[in-house]
């Protein structure tokens, strides 16, 4: 079986007048089903760009990205939308909930686009909300919830579509350390239940909660290995100093 995620010499190059910014500068890597990977690096190292490509929100300038063996570069807008809908669940730093809709409607949104009938949609959304401990907040608007609760809504939303990968870009970035730890624990639980998770963070202590760390610097991979290895930390500190 093809790996779930495979980058083959992927570039993302932004042209800013005369200069070129290589946000992703020739990355090759694979992520298998069931992994919990943290992509770490300093701000501006290309983590978000990487996640956008993995999430089919953006396409590489050069190189190939294969999702479950399928070359995403060949697909059009609507195909990419369908892939995001079926295979990907996003968790953003700023939660990105729809403010005018209730918690339940937010979680149902991707199911609406998937064409899931109403009754099933309701049942699935309620189940995932119960899973993240928000069964009693279905009718609330996002603004009526705390930051940690909002992030849990967005986790429920990512889970509801039963995706192949959950992509979390700095999910604890806007939270205090205690709620941040709770959210992280929830992601670890989800991983234990068999979900594939790609977590993006600039924080080493958070990255170490994952199984595997991919460290980026200037759009290149400078470390790819177990999270508990000596080198992951050493390099991290080196990276931070330099």
């Amino acid at each position, binding site marked *: 079986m093809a790996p779930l995620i495979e980058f083959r010499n992927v570039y993302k190059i932004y042209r800013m007048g005369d200069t070129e910014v290589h946000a992703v500068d020739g990355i090759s890597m694979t992520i298998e089903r069931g992994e919990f990977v943290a992509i770490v690096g300093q701000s501006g190292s290309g983590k978000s760009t990487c996640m956008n490509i993995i999430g089919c929100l953006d396409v590489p300038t050069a190189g190939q990205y294969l999702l479950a063996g399928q070359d995403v570069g060949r697909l059009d807008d609507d195909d990419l939308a369908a892939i995001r809908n079926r295979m990907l669940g*996003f968790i953003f730093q700023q939660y990105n909930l729809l403010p005018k809709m209730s918690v339940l409607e937010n979680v149902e949104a991707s199911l609406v*686009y998937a064409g899931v009938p109403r009754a099933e949609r309701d049942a699935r959304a309620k189940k995932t909300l119960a899973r993240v401990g928000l069964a009693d907040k279905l009718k609330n608007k996002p603004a009526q919830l705390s930051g940690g609760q909002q992030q849990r809504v967005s986790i429920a939303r990512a889970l509801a579509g039963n995706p192949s990968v959950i992509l979390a870009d700095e999910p604890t970035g806007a939270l205090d350390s205690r709620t941040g730890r709770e959210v992280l624990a929830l992601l670890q639980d989800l991983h234990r239940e068999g979900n594939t998770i790609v977590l993006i963070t600039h924080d080493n202590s958070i990255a170490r909660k994952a199984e595997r760390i991919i460290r980026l610097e200037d759009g290149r991979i400078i470390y790819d290995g177990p999270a508990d290895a000596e080198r992951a930390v050493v390099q991290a500190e080196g990276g931070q100093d330099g």
Partner: protein
Amino acid sequence: MSFFQSFRLALQSIFSSKVRALLTMLGIIIGVAAVIVIVGLGNGMQNFMTDSFESMGTNLITVTVVGRGTARSVSDDDMYELAQENPALLSAVSPTVSSGAQLKIGTETPSTSVTGVGEDYADIRQYEVGQGRFLRYVDVLRRQKVCVIGSYVSNEYFDGGGVGETIKIGGYTYTVIGVLKEKADSGEYGDDNVALIPYTNAVKLSNSGQISSYYFSAASEDVITQAKAAIEERLEKAFGSDTAYSVISMSELLDIMDDMLNVMITILAAIAAISLVVGGIGIMNIMLVSVSERTREIGIRKSLGARQRDIMQQFVIEAATTSGIGGVIGIGFGYLLSSLATKLIVALLQQDMAVTPTAGSIAMAFGISVAIGILFGYLPAKKAARLNPIDALRYE
């Protein structure tokens, strides 16, 4: 995403900013109301006209003889003969002669016009006799000095009676033998301020000494055209020219007036519809603002798997719903204005003409407003649908 889902989202979005939605709809509301009132006004005018024409008799055919460019002429006997020969086409005929003579009642000189007519005139013009009797053939034949007065004259000078009284016409004494029932509103200007005398007398009173017009009644509405043709044929034969007379049927006149009114209404409605277009541009404007305000929402929806057509549908339906609601409000508003206009017309013009919006104009106004929403919502929706998901997500 289903149509129903999009519709619910649209309502949610509209109701979450009511004032803005209302302002957005304003152009549509005004446009729709204007179209409804104008078409209603035209419809009312048409009804009013049809009613007035009907009270004159839609079967009426008038013949005016000018006698220009020919020495030949037709006599009243010719015209009676024509009617008798064509009973299937013509049911009655009456000469009408404006005597020009002054009417005197006691010492007063009313504005009443004195008209010489035949014995069938009452039937042709749909007058009914209230008191006494109408003119008869013998009155005409013997040139009796008898007279039938309209309800205005009776009310004004004889306290609602008058039969048996005498009046003076052109210096001769006439006896009132009948009073007509009210036909219009017994006003001074209308069919009720009349004095009818035998046409044989009126001819003598008039300057020309000639009968210059005839009223025919067609046997039925279906034969008006043939009846008119028969009259024309006879006159053509008599005069050897078709410029010496004119024949006009009321139904023809009504058709012409109808056509003119329709053209007028269409033009006015089209002008009013311009404000619908302006309203549409207003909707487009607000939708464009809304798209950029909701860029992030669009980004989120795209990250959740919304396809271009889902976003497109959401915004187009929102625009159509906005303008559709505007249309409904406009229809209500138009109704309100129509009933106000009716009251105003009745109060100011003393005519009982009702501004009646037509079902067709309402359906059309609503249809057009929804269509305008779709049309002018299309561009902003397209813009929204084409947004790049990451740019949209990053948008502050």
